[in-house]
């Protein structure tokens, strides 16, 4: 009987070891892009010297856009400079036109498509190295050359922070960022005076025929007043009439008996253009209004005068001014992303033709989870995804 017990014990121990050792050996695969760890929704699968990764992993790590059609089983991966088309179950893929073959075949994992990491990274000009369960991607640390960026003062803080980070990461790279307003950004890009433009307004169809806008962040234009102003909400009609000069006293909108001092941005400002497009139905703000030459200056002007009203990017709004809701909707991440706030907008980088080299990589970096979380959100704007 004791022999039988020993056998049972031995078998149980053996079963335990057999079942747990492979689990212990299958260490968690980690993925880093230029040293920064990427959180993954689907764990990467290492296959030889390549890996299958999810579309969200590519979006977060490399800043690319992705789409997947469940009915057609087709995957599109699009960076600033390149386009990849994959099909589930087919190792061949389309890279900017020509057909190439990936080392690993795209498939579905828990209904989510996964594709070859190496095909995408090397197509972008980066490198992939795999050691054990660690995947290291180099892309944003391989930048070199000069990138000149001009335009919107709304987008300027984001571009400047990103430029500082990438300049520090790459010894042979110089990215310079200057303001001037969206109008200057558009004209400089059309005229070839920069490598990338910045705009806080949508382009006209005429401009779109010449240059390409790429959204890198979302934003809302807040109507702002002095913190002591008791008015909390304006209807769209009231706000429009104030900026058109048709309502001139705060008492007409529930405030105290005092004249309304309208502060606006200068002609050429993307923020002013967007307000005129979305709130004023393409009419111009009152000509006698005081113009400020930047997002920072208009906020200061409103903060100085208790009867003032102005408008500014929510990225610049702080406690020195008070935000007034429009038609009872306040400009927040949820209302702008949800499309319910009247003056939500995208902020764009502009390119003339398909961007190349460091300019293209800079655009991709702005769309990574790293930049969106550590720069876009920190600066007070709304991240893309």
């Amino acid at each position, binding site marked *: 009987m004791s022999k039988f017990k020993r056998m049972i014990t031995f078998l149980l121990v053996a079963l335990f070891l057999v079942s747990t050792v492979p689990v212990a050996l299958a260490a968690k695969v980690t993925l880093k892009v230029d040293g920064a760890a990427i959180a993954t929704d689907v764990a990467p699968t290492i296959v030889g010297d390549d890996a299958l990764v999810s579309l969200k992993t590519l979006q977060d790590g490399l800043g690319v856009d992705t789409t997947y059609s469940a009915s057609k089983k087709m995957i599109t991966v699009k960076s600033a400079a390149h386009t990849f088309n994959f099909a589930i179950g087919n190792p061949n893929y389309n890279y900017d036109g020509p057909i190439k073959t990936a080392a690993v075949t795209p498939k579905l994992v828990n209904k989510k498509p996964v594709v070859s990491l190496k095909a995408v990274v090397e197509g972008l000009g980066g490198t992939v190295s795999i050691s054990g369960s660690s995947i290291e991607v180099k892309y944003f640390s391989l930048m070199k050359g000069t990138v000149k960026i001009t335009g919107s003062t709304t987008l300027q803080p984001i571009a400047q922070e990103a430029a500082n980070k990438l300049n520090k990461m790459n010894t042979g790279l110089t990215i310079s960022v200057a303001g001037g307003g969206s109008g200057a950004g558009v004209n400089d890009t059309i005229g070839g005076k920069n490598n990338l433009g910045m705009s806080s307004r949508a382009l006209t169809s005429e401009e779109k025929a010449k240059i390409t806008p790429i959204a890198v962040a979302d934003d809302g234009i807040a109507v702002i007043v002095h913190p002591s102003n008791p008015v909390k909400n304006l209807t769209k009609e009231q706000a429009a009439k104030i900026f058109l000069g048709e309502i001139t006293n705060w008492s007409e909108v*529930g405030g105290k008996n005092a004249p309304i001092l309208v502060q606006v941005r200068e002609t050429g400002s993307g923020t002013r253009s967007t307000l005129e497009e979305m709130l004023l139905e393409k009419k111009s703000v009152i000509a006698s209004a005081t113009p400020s030459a930047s997002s920072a200056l208009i906020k200061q002007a409103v903060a100085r005068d208790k009867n003032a009203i102005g408008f500014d990017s929510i990225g610049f709004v702080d406690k020195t001014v008070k935000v007034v809701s429009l038609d*009872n909707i306040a400009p*927040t991440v949820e209302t702008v992303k*949800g499309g319910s706030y009247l003056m939500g907008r995208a902020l764009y980088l502009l390119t003339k033709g398909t961007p190349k080299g460091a300019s293209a990589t800079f655009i991709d970096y702005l769309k990574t989870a790293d930049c969106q979380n550590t720069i876009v959100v920190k600066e007070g704007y709304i991240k893309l995804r």
Partner: protein
Amino acid sequence: MAKIHRVILVLCLLVTFMVMFTGCIDKQKLKVMFGPDGANASVSAPVSQNGGTGSDAGDAQAQARQSLDINGSVGVLPLMKLLGDAFSESGGCIVNVTAGGKDAAITAADSGEADAVLYEESGAPGSENAQVIASDGVMLIVNAGFPADGIEYDHIVELFTDQDNMIGDEEVQLVLTGPGSHTRQVFEGIFPVRGESEGVQQSLVPDTATIVERDSDVVSEVLANPSAIGVVSIGTDLQGAKALLIDGRSLQDEGYGAREQIVLYTGQPQSELSKAFAGFIQSDAAKKVLSDNGYTLPVK
């Protein structure tokens, strides 16, 4: 002895009168009267305030102090306005309504900038001072002869974002009410069927979908078309149409994926205005507002 009774009676009436109007008392005075945690203290004379936007100059500051601020998600903005108006009518108090989204609204309530928050929640509210005041949701309906009895949540999203047009071997025809309808807004709030284009959120429902005016029209279309799949509010008379199970659950089951609760959150700590509004929500007037506008009241 009779004199003492009269004094007590007068005092009781006085206290009752003051309690009735606490919803409209200056917030600063309330803090002095009740203390920061709302503890009981001596009660001073109430301040009742009528008014609204567009009033005469001079007392705007006073108006702002004597107002109830309701914040919340955009999906319940119409409900916030209706309840705010009803509260205002019952107490003579100014009500400011702002939709800043659930997260921003809760932050506003906790910082004292808002007195009450309304938002949609798919599950039970987890935080203190939060209560379900009503529920809302949709059903996916098909013809009684339709071969499938259920559908997965993700498949609904694929169908209504043009990523698929089949249920089993059946090519389906989508039927919905228009973008401005309550049902459509609830549907698009529960299922992620909107996408961004140049910074603007847009419905991804394909152009091939049949758009009708009312829920009853959706039911009619589904009854007439064996391949139709329609979206209607919970509580709609299906007239023989079949409601699909979602992830194996029916509307009556816990965890049904197309139902949401309307939650009232009154901040932490609660202000006296918050308590007054929470009390009002339990009144018949508030319940009538909810039921008249298609919401289902929680079962006691």
